[in-house]
């Protein structure tokens, strides 16, 4: 059996399990954790577009998620727009935000990009805290209208509606990432990460590619932010916070940047481990941090590097596998 066939079988099995899970298990705690893990997978996969494939240290990605959530909340709650418009609103708001944050960093590199994008996140947070009438300020925006079809609420059957909606988003995200990696657009993004001067010398447009990268990557957090707000029926300022950002970053690094499956694996493994370790209290941060260091020590490419590593072992070659290329041209 070749690698592609094996990957395909694994992919189908993975989604089959996720599809069947709610049918065989209706535990509300497991349901909640699954929804969160799926949403993280969407968030981290799309962050991988800018941070992994693009090598652009965009620390504003979680702000796109928060903006999607707040935009949906404000429009559907305060302005009485139908909740079904929530997702389009979230996506449009996040994409607009991505354009705003991208313009100042169109030609910047490395640490400066971190600075600007993180400052943008803090700015958004300040706006949310100040516009209390609209956003609920410190307390967050609550009682966001849920999704309903006639008498059926997406909250029925332990949030089955939200579970399957999130799963659908993950499938769409994965398909989008597979398209991205094979498209001229995706190749251009990687070309700029690998060698900017060379890319320009082959006629590739830096500013246009970077802007499109930001806009494309913002679609997914916008959508998932909207659904998250409708699922928990609230949006909170914590969504702009540093700990949320580092959590997602840990998932991305643990899973493996610049790969299709790494971010998804990272999101699931990390969410499950964090939940298993909850009894340890604050000590769990120590354990997860150690875990990340260990994984990255032996697999610089993250979890996504393990199959390749195993393959090399089978072939009798040694050495760690993976593609830590993103760290290369940003030093």
């Amino acid at each position, binding site marked *: 059996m070749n690698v592609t066939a094996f990957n395909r079988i694994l992919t189908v099995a993975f989604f089959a399990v996720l599809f069947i899970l709610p049918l065989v298990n209706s535990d509300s705690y497991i349901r909640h954790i699954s929804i969160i893990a799926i949403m993280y997978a969407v968030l981290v996969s799309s962050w991988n577009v800018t941070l992994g494939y693009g090598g652009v240290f965009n620390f504003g990605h979680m702000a796109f998620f928060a903006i999607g959530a707040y935009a949906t909340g404000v429009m559907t709650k305060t302005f009485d727009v139908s909740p079904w418009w929530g997702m389009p609103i979230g996506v449009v708001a996040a994409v607009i935000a991505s354009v705003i944050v991208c313009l100042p960093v169109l030609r910047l590199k490395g640490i400066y990009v971190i600075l600007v994008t993180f400052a943008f996140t803090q700015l958004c947070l300040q706006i949310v805290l100040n516009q209390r009438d609209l956003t609920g300020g410190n307390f967050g925006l609550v009682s966001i209208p849920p999704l309903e079809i006639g008498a059926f609420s997406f909250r029925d059957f332990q949030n089955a509606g939200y579970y399957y909606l999130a799963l659908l988003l993950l499938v769409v995200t994965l398909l989008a990432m597979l398209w991205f990696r094979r498209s001229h657009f995706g190749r251009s993004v990687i070309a700029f990460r690998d060698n900017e001067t060379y890319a320009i010398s082959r*006629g590739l447009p830096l500013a246009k590619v970077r802007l499109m990268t930001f806009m494309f990557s913002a679609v997914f957090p916008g959508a998932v932010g909207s659904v998250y707000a409708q699922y928990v029926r609230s949006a909170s300022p914590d969504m702009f916070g540093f700990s949320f950002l580092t959590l997602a970053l840990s998932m991305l690094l643990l899973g493996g940047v610049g790969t299709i499956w790494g971010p998804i694996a990272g999101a699931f493994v990390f969410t499950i481990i964090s939940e298993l370790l909850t009894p340890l209290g604050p000590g769990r941060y120590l354990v997860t941090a150690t875990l990340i260091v260990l994984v990255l020590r032996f697999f610089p490419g993250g979890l996504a590097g393990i199959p390749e590593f195993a393959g090399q072992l089978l072939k009798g070659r040694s050495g760690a596998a993976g593609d830590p290329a993103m760290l290369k041209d940003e030093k």
Partner: protein
Amino acid sequence: MTPLLDVKDIRKSFGALQAIGGVSFTLNRGEILGIAGPNGSGKSTLFNILTKIPFPPDSGEVSLDGKPLKSLGPRQIVDAGLLRIFQTEMDFESLTVLENILVSMPDKPGSGTPSSKQKKADELLELFGLTAHSDRLAGEINVYDRKRLMVATAFAHNPLVLLLDEPAAGLSKPEIEEMVELIRQLNRLGVSIILIEHIIPLLVAVSDRLIVLNFGEVLAEGLPREIVRNPKVVEAYIGNQSDG
């Protein structure tokens, strides 16, 4: 007939150092123009300022196919048909060899369907002897293949003029012979070429005309076999060597 590339009095200084001082020359259609000169004489800087990658000349005029390049940015110059390779190997290391070529092909509306591009890329792989490496990562192939790939990606963008900066540096003897044959073949396919080369016999063998740079200025210009016997040229090389 107007020359394909017309360079008039271009200059470039780095602080007090004048890297290119008032260089003028022309390149005719179908020609291979060789550029020789000791280390540090400004050859690579000449390519840099012609393409504006990474910086334009301080002054002077360049026109390609009758079109002035003054108001164009680096990418527009590339699209106008002035393509270069770099002295040190460059590649998109985490893309495959095939993807390196595909991403370098023009991407304008009407520049071809995905399948026609794929077909053209396959032909280029064949032409440059890279078919066997098609699916390998560019960062994993050897120096010679990477040099050829760098020329192939330039050729993939439909150049009128190819600027080759020491394409034979670091290659073995048989590889150099193949590279010479490749350059001739590209020229037969209709591309005009400016060739910077350290290996003088190679330059003499392929060039129609030769320019020698020294301290950023044209020291001599003419037919290759005459140029290498020019006492000024001989002295520039020997003098430079004894300076270290």
